C-alpha cells in the first residue's frame, strides 16, 4: 500500500514541516488553514489523486495525504483538510453543472475558499431521513430555512454544501443539495463549538429565509440523499485512512513509551502482560491496514462494497478508541497531563470514531447486507 512516487512523500513532509509551527494546541484552524491548503496545492499535493484534469487518477495519493496528516502532533489540520478537499470539494466537483459551481471548485482547491459539508442537525445525526432543514422554490429562487450542527470547517467556511428537504413526503427522494455562501443574507454562522478535541473545527449555523439563485442547487433535484450515499462509501475510506494514520502513530508512541518507562527494575515492554497487550493491538493495526489495502485495491477495480467500507469504519472506531485508552493507561500519570500526546489523543479519537457515521449505523449497514 502507498506505493507512491517518493518525491510526493518527500514534498508532503517538507510542506508539513514548514507549517507545523503554526499548529498550536487550541488554536483555531481559521488562522492557518487557507495558507496550508494553498501551499499543498502549489506543490501538487492536494488533489493529485483526483481524476483528470485535477489530478492523475490515482486516489492512493488522497489516502496517503490523509493518512500522513493524521500522524501529526494535532489532529485538526488533517480533519479540516480532509473535510475540505475530499469530502466537500470532491462532492462539489463531481456534481458541478454550471460556471458558478465550477469557480467554487477552483477557488476551493487553491485555498481561497474553504468548504464544509453540512448534513447533521441538532436532532438528526446519523439518520439523515430525519432532516428538517428546508428549501422551497420561491419566485425562481430557492429559499432556505433551518439549522445545522456539528459541522467540520463551518466556523470559518466561505461556503457550505447543505442537505435540505425539498419535498415533505417521507421518501429518499425528498432531499437535495445546495451550495450556500456563508455571507448570504439570512445565514448565521455561530461561534465554534466548544468540543472536547479538534478545538475550533466544528460549528453550527442557522438559515433564516436565505434566498439563493437557481445555480446554487447542486446536482439533480431530489437526488441529494442518493448522491451523498454514493459519496459516503468513499468518505468512509478516507476516514479509515485517517484512522490508520492515527492508529500507527499511537501504536509507535505507545511502544516508545513502554520501552522508556521502567517498573520493577525492567522496561514496561519487557513485562509479559504488557508485551502481549501491545502485540494484540499491533495485530489489530496490521489487520486494519490489510483490510484498507484490499478495499483500496477493490476501489481501483471500480467498486467499494458498501458493507465492507462500513465494517472497516466500525473496526477502525473500535481500534482508535482502544489504542488511545491503552496509550493513556500505559503512560501512567504523565499521560493524563495536558500537553502529553496521550491526553490529546484520548480526547480526539472519540471524534474520529464518529466521523462518517456512528458505530451503530455502521453495524446496521453491515447487518442489512448479511442478515438480508
Amino acid at each position: 500500500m502507498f506505493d507512491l512516487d517518493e518525491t510526493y512523500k518527500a514534498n508532503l513532509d517538507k510542506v508539513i514541516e514548514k507549517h507545523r509551527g503554526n499548529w498550536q494546541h487550541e488554536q483555531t484552524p481559521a488562522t492557518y488553514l487557507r495558507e496550508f491548503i494553498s501551499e499543498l496545492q502549489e506543490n501538487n499535493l492536494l488533489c493529485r489523486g483526483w481524476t483528470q484534469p485535477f489530478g492523475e487518477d490515482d486516489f492512493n495519493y488522497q489516502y496517503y495525504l490523509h493518512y500522513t496528516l493524521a500522524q501529526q502532533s494535532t489532529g485538526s489540520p488533517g480533519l479540516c483538510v480532509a473535510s475540505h478537499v475530499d469530502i466537500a470539494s470532491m462532492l462539489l466537483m463531481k456534481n458541478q453543472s454550471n460556471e458558478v459551481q465550477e469557480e467554487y471548485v477552483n477557488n476551493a482547491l487553491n485555498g481561497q475558499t474553504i468548504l464544509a459539508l453540512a448534513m447533521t442537525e441538532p436532532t438528526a445525526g446519523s439518520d439523515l431521513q430525519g432532516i428538517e432543514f428546508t428549501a422551497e422554490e420561491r419566485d425562481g429562487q430557492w429559499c432556505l430555512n433551518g439549522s445545522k450542527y456539528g459541522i467540520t470547517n463551518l466556523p470559518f467556511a466561505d461556503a457550505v454544501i447543505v442537505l435540505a428537504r425539498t419535498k415533505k413526503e417521507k421518501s429518499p427522494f425528498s432531499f437535495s443539495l445546495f451550495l450556500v455562501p456563508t455571507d448570504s443574507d439570512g445565514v448565521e454562522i455561530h461561534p465554534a463549538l466548544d468540543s472536547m478535541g479538534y478545538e475550533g473545527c466544528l460549528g453550527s449555523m442557522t438559515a433564516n429565509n436565505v434566498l439563493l439563485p437557481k445555480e446554487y442547487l447542486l446536482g439533480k433535484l431530489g437526488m441529494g440523499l442518493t448522491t451523498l450515499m454514493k459519496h459516503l462509501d468513499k468518505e468512509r475510506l478516507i476516514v479509515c485512512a485517517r484512522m490508520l494514520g492515527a492508529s500507527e502513530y499511537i501504536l509507535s508512541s505507545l511502544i516508545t513509551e513502554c520501552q522508556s518507562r521502567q517498573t520493577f527494575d525492567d522496561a514496561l515492554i519487557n513485562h509479559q502482560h504488557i508485551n502481549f497487550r501491545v502485540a494484540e493491538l499491533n495485530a489489530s493495526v496490521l489487520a486494519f491496514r490489510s483490510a484498507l489495502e484490499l478495499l483500496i485495491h477493490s476501489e481501483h477495480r471500480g467498486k467499494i462494497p458498501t458493507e465492507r467500507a462500513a465494517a472497516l469504519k466500525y473496526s477502525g472506531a473500535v481500534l482508535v478508541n482502544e489504542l488511545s485508552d491503552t496509550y493513556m493507561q500505559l503512560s501512567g500519570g504523565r499521560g493524563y497531563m495536558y500537553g502529553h500526546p496521550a491526553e490529546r489523543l484520548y480526547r480526539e479519537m472519540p471524534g474520529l470514531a464518529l466521523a462518517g457515521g456512528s458505530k451503530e449505523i455502521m453495524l446496521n449497514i453491515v447487518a442489512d447486507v448479511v442478515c438480508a
Partner: protein
Amino acid sequence: MLESNHSITPQWMSQDCLAWSKRINNGFDEVLMPIATSNVTKYDYKGIIKALHDKGITGLRFDDERDGLKAGLPAQAMFAEALGRVPCGALGMSLTIHLDMVAPMVHQLGNTRQLKDILHHALRGRFLFSHAVTEPNAGSDIRMMKTTAVKKGDEWIINGTKKMISLAPIADYHFVLATVEGKAPPFNMVAFLIPKHAPGVVVGPLQRTLGNQACPVADIEFHNAKVSDSLRLGQAGMGFILQMQQFVQERILSSLRANEMAKSCLSEIIKHLKAREVAGKPIAQIDSIRHRIAHLTAELYQSQSATYVAMGRWINDDDYDSLSATCKLLSSRLAKQVTREAMQLGGVGHYQNASVFSGYFRDARLLSISTGSDEMMLKSIASSEQY
C-alpha cells in the same frame, strides 16, 4: 454444495485461481461432503486422499513433473479455504497435516528416492503422515525438545517421547524432529520420516479429545528406535530452521481454514436466526442480535484481510512474519468467538452433540492451541516488530 463467495478478491486471487477453487469445491462436494460430520469418530483417510487425487486436487502447490499439479500457492490457498467450509474439523485438520504440513516439507527436503518412494505414494493415499514434533515439555516452544538422534553407521538411534500427536494411531510415517548431540542451537535438529513398524517405535493408546474426534490422537515413544539414514530429511542440523519456516507458512493456511470455518458457521447462525421467531418476529430482525452478527462480520473481514495480505506476501516472497502471526491469532480467536455465539444463539437444541453448531464449537477450540498457540503468536509479533 460448497461455494466460495469472495466479496473481496486480493490481487493473487486470479481468474485461474478461482477456477481452481471451483474445481476443489466440486471435488470436495463429491468426496468430503457426503461423509463430513463432527459425530464420526473414524475416517478412511487413505481412501479419501486417493479419491481427492483422482479428482486432481492433491499436490496442488508442487511444480515437479511427477507429483506436481503446478497450480501454485494460490490454488493451495483455495484448498485450505475449502477445507474450512467442510463442516468437520477433523477432516480439515487431518488432511492439512498430511497434505499441507508434512508433504511440503518432504517435497522441499526429500532426495529423489524419498520423493519417488514416499511422497509420490503419499499423495495418492497409499501412505499417511503424522507430524510428531510436540513433546511433554515442548509444545509451542520446540527449542525445549528432548528427543535425541544418535548416528551409528548407516542408522540413527532415536530416544524420546512425542506427545498428543494427531494421526499417530493410523499414520504410516511419522515426521519426527529430534536433537543431534554436539551441535549448537538452532542448528541442532534433524528431521526423519520414521515408519510405523520401525523397531522401537511404540504408539500409545488412543486419547479422547474435546473435538476433532475423527482425527485420532496418541503419544509416540521411541525406545532406541532404529531408523535408516535414508529416511533422514535434509541436512542433519537444519531441522529447526526448516520447521520454523514451515510454521510461519502453515499459520497462514490455518487462518484460511479458520476464517472459512467462522464464515460458514456465521451463515448457519444467520439462517437459523431468520427462521426462528421470538415475540412474533424473526430473531434476525432484533437490533441487538443484528449488531452482534454485524460485529462478528466486521471481525471476520479484519481477520480475512490480514490472511489474504499475508498470503499475497508469501506468494510474492515478501516479508510476512508479523502478518502470519497476526492472521493466525485473529482467525483462531474469531473461530472460537463465532462458534461460541452460535451455541448461544442456537439455543438448547444446538447444545446437543448432533448439532452442527456444537461440532463447530468443539472443533474450533483447538485452533488457538495448535499450530502455535495464541500466546506464541503474540510473542512472534513482538519479536518480528522488535519490542
